[in-house]
């Protein structure tokens, strides 16, 4: 760590992990509600638990992205953070707003919450992932603007490296595209069209820039490979992500009102979307193979490689299997979508967060070459348990989705099974999913434990060339 102001990242990472634990708790409850339909009803209906699960994910990923930015931008810019005080204030504002919103979801009926927060003045609630009360959304905008200002000022007064420029473009995009969440017309077709300008342009657009920048930064640090080489790769990867992903948004426009040419555009461009993720795999492994030093924090290297591989599988492969319009006609809104959602979010965004935390946290705790070998061993077990657990969840949901399509979507009106009858048939597969969910939770528990394992600290080794 070059600058003391990088330390403001620490509370962001810690709080992200606290929310991650909360997300898992509700994920487990949802998994149980899939197999025991009335589990916790009416105290915690499925829609509330799901909203908490997805909103916690979004908020903790934002905390992790912010922490990553506060850590890496000063180091890249070669100057102290513009205002560590602003970063600390925004941390508390965002944490308080986040916690208050989640408590509101849990303890106030949603319709009451809408009334309490004057949703009728500017109705934005009740849409998937954007369930936050309007006042919370305004808070998110204020936090995002303050954050981007702080990061932007730091970059302006320091070195403008490629990593910093790509990261800040992604962060500005994140703030700008969130503004579409305030547009909610009575016309559902228009509402849905622009809802995707937040949701798709985040996860298949600007978030990929953030991911790419964090991955590139970590790889420079742990491999010692020349910055010029890594920056060239970064440009091409995120360039391809935008080239494929912007018009690739068409794969969401197949069945919600927009015209027929989106069937072609969405299919063709989203078929290209796996390419940047595949390049990320090649890139990560090539950089590690050509490394100039053996970094003592070898588990951080594992996380970086894992992000590339699991991101490619979840976003690339599992995205592709249902993205072509003739396939999506049958799979749209089935468990196939849920399978893709889980592996893509985990592989790309959860894992990049854990990568930077795994790299930066030990340094902020005075261990420049990573945690002790014993701690890394526990973390390595956690890595595999999480990856295998999430892969198992995904495979189970994929089987469930394929079976759902066969029973409910493929047959004609007379023979097709109803939604609820189909769900009954899928029960055994949902139990398997639950089993892998327990493995995943075990992995995360091991991950948290690894923070408290002591032992002798490792040292760096130079590689003779």
């Amino acid at each position: 760590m070059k600058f003391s102001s990088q330390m403001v990242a620490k509370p962001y990472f810690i709080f992200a992990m606290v929310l991650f634990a909360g997300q898992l708790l509700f994920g487990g409850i949802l998994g149980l509600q899939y197999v025991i339909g009335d589990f916790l009803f009416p105290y915690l209906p499925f829609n509330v638990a799901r909203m908490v699960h997805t909103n916690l994910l979004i908020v903790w990923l934002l905390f992790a992205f912010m922490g990553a930015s506060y850590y890496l931008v000063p180091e890249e810019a070669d100057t102290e953070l513009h205002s560590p005080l602003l970063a600390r204030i925004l941390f508390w504002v965002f944490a308080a707003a986040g916690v208050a919103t989640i408590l509101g979801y849990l303890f106030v009926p949603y319709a009451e919450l809408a009334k309490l927060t004057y949703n009728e003045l500017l109705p934005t609630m009740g849409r998937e992932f954007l369930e936050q009360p309007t006042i919370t959304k305004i808070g998110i905008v204020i936090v995002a603007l303050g954050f981007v200002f702080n990061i932007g000022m730091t970059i302006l007064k320091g070195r403008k490296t490629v990593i910093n420029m790509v990261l800040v473009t992604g962060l500005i995009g994140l703030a700008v595209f969130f503004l579409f969440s305030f547009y909610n017309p009575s016309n559902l077709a228009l509402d849905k069209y622009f809802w995707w300008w937040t949701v798709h342009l985040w996860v298949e657009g600007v978030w990929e820039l953030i991911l790419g920048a964090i991955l590139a930064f970590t790889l420079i640090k742990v491999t010692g490979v020349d910055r010029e080489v890594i920056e060239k790769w970064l440009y091409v990867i995120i360039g391809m992500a935008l080239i494929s992903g912007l018009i690739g948004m068409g794969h969401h426009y197949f069945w919600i009102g927009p015209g027929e040419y989106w069937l072609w555009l969405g299919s063709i461009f989203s078929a290209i979307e796996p390419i940047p993720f595949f390049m990320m795999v090649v890139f990560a492994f090539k950089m590690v193979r050509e490394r100039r030093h053996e970094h003592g924090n070898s588990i951080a290297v594992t996380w970086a490689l894992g992000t590339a591989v699991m991101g490619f599988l979840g976003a690339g492969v599992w995205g592709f299997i249902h993205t072509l319009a003739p396939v999506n006609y049958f799979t749209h809104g089935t468990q196939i979508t849920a399978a893709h959602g889980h592996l893509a979010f985990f592989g790309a965004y959860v894992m990049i967060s854990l990568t930077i935390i795994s790299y930066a946290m030990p340094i902020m705790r005075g261990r420049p070459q990573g945690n002790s070998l014993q701690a890394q061993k526990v973390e390595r077990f956690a890595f595999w348990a999480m990856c295998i657990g999430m892969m198992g969840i995904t495979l189970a949901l994929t089987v469930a989705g394929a079976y759902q399509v066969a029973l409910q979507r493929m047959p004609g009106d007379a023979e097709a099974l109803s939604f609820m009858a189909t769900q009954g048939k899928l029960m055994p597969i949902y139990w398997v999913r639950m089993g892998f969910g327990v493995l995943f939770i075990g992995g995360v528990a091991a991950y948290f434990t690894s923070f408290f394992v002591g032992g002798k600290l490792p040292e760096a080794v130079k590689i003779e060339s």
Partner: protein
Amino acid sequence: MADQFNKGMARNIYYGGGVFFFLLLVGLTLDTLRVLPERDHRENITEEVAHGKELWENNNCIGCHTLMGEGAYFAPELANVYDRYGQGNEEAFKAFLQSWMSIQPLGVEGRRQMPQFNLSTDEVDALAAFLIWTSRINDNDWPPNIQG
């Protein structure tokens, strides 16, 4: 990567490609906004339909159901629920929805439960009007069958 492919070229792919395809997206969006009125039959969005959408949102229906395939996957698709239970008769569908909403939760042990939302008769009618309007959006003939 080969040496003749330098960082400047890579940068151009990123900035050039990003800007070009973003502008293309804006252009396609303008075109879509031009043709959308014929496909979404917005002239039929009455006050009742708009109120129905508000109720849909304020009760977080999307947290369990899908609407045009988007939402949670825990409860049935509702963009075609009018086709499924209305048999082309709006009054019959409203009557069906009134009784269906009033008997929730069903209380069958182990079955997924829909909460009781305590909506008034007018509110359920508005919800029905919103779902009927939604069922008539031109959505390229999705879903494949009546079950959704």
